[in-house]
């Protein structure tokens, strides 16, 4: 649906010392009908990336192709036509305060020159779809944040787009409201077959609804693929750090403080066990304890759901004696557990 082909974007002129490279050789493909998430810290270039899709920003080099059309080659008129086929929702909703919910949803239709009767026939069902059929005459200031975003979604859908861009749409909302908005996006994706491209800095968002994910860091895509694969096999440092904050796999401070890279006599080894796929359903922790004797501590752990699949992470410590370590490693190999040695503690 959307293809980025070695896309770069620089701000400022090339002679300018303050020239800033927002995107650097981005290759990315957004699958039709899927929900794709782009995650990165603030300043990583994700806002620029999503604005290239509907031409709000222009690429410095490379091609952005949306549904077979290269965005950079379009005239102003061509761009406006494209934008009418691409809906967009925003972090701060960007609803007109002077218009009621109904009139806000009607705005893109008015802009497209749709006549009054048709607008009336279209807006009602959209408000119903987002669950705000009874709020048609309310002004944005009379609505909660979640309701405003629902109006924003209805507005984005008004011109029946084939692609929906979501610019941090849940970042200004509380966790509960975030979940309800994500559920709505998921529902729309399923019912209307709409392709969704969203950017966020919240792992939670990607984990909950995105089937595909790309991790962006300093203008480069560092990892991309199916959400579950990327998250469970995270190789890049950025992905890992974004993940550890979200997946509850961050070590407690008192352990991190006393951790050593090399074992001393009588030290204990710290290992992270990762459960997913088949291993998530087996009683492996119990068997590990039985295998190594009772001297296994559990220091941190969590079980999460990523893109609908279970994912567990457990940090354990046991004596760093060669015999014990070898028995443990044999057990991991036999049971198919993926593990990571974090360090050693006294």
């Amino acid at each position, binding site marked *: 649906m959307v293809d980025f082909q070695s896309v770069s974007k620089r701000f400022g002129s090339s002679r300018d010392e303050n020239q800033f490279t927002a995107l650097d050789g981005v290759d990315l493909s957004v699958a039709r009908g899927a929900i794709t998430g782009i995650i990165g810290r603030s300043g990583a270039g994700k806002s620029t990336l999503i604005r290239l899709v*509907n031409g*709000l920003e222009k690429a410095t080099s490379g091609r952005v192709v949306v549904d077979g059309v290269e965005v950079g080659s379009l005239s102003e008129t061509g*761009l*406006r*036509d*494209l*934008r*009418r086929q*691409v809906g*967009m929702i*925003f972090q*701060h909703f*960007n609803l*007109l*305060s*002077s*218009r009621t919910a109904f009139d806000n949803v009607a*705005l*893109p239709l*008015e*802009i*497209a020159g749709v006549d009054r009767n048709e607008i009336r026939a279209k807006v009602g069902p959209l408000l119903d779809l987002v669950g705000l059929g009874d709020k048609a005459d309310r*002004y*944005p*200031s*009379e*609505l909660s944040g979640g309701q405003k975003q629902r109006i924003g979604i209805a507005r984005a859908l008004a*011109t029946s787009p084939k692609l929906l*861009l979501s610019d941090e749409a849940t970042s200004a909302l509380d966790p509960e409201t975030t979940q309800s908005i994500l559920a709505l996006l998921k529902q729309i994706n399923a019912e209307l077959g709409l392709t969704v491209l969203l950017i966020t800095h919240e792992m939670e968002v990607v984990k909950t609804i995105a089937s595909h994910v790309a991790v962006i860091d300093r203008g480069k895509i560092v990892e991309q693929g199916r959400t579950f694969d990327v998250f469970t096999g995270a190789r890049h440092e950025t992905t890992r750090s974004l993940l550890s904050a979200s997946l509850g796999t961050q070590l407690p401070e008192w352990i991190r403080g006393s951790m050593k890279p090399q074992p001393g006599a009588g030290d204990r080894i710290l290992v992270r066990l990762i459960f997913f796929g088949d291993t998530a359903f087996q009683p492996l922790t119990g068997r590990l304890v039985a295998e190594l004797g009772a001297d296994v501590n559990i220091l941190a752990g969590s079980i999460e759901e990523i893109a609908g699949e279970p994912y567990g992470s457990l940090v354990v410590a046991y004596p760093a004696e060669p015999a014990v370590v070898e028995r443990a490693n044999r057990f991991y190999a036999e049971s198919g557990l993926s593990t990571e040695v974090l360090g050693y503690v006294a």
Partner: protein
Amino acid sequence: MSLDMLIGLLTKSLGQTLQMVVIAGLIGSLIGLPIGIFLATSGKGELFPAPIANRILGAIVNATRSTPFIILVVAIIPFTRFVTGTSIGTYAAIVPLTIATIPFFARLVEAAIREVDKGLIEAARAMGATPMQIVFKVLLAEARPSITLAITMTLVSLIGYSAMVGAVGGGGLGDLGIRYGYQRFMPEVMLAVVVVLIVLVQIVQSAGDALARRFDKRNRKT
């Protein structure tokens, strides 16, 4: 002076003041509005980028605004004569009042439009709106409460300015106050003029505030 005479004078002067304020306000706003919109949208990277025209127009607006009104009245007498055929009287006074209103109102409109959240412009662009659609459907609609207040402020200033055009025989309440109250030592006329002016300004301001509040949907409580 008898009460009847005073009332007669006041009514006539009030009529002249209203005539000057309403006509100058109307024409000045109609010309000032597009200039204000242009000033607010023609900067670099804005809807109608024309930075040079923007700077030139801005300089003209500043020059007009920094000329003291009484000097403006005298300075543009040739222009006034060209437009109205005379340089004295109420109609002649409307010309400098209009000229002074245009840049004043344009700056207020510019400020009102710049106040509109940039996110709304981006949202409208993302919907495929043309720059003109953005001006009419987004900027003017969202700035309506502020522009209403700008009109109010312009009318109040005009009431003040109109007191000065007695210098060119424009008449009006200010002129009445100066000629009868000051030059003929009739404090009761001066007092009456001031009271009428205060009431007039109050009415205009209250009406403007009420209208702006009605247009403003930003702080509605559920």
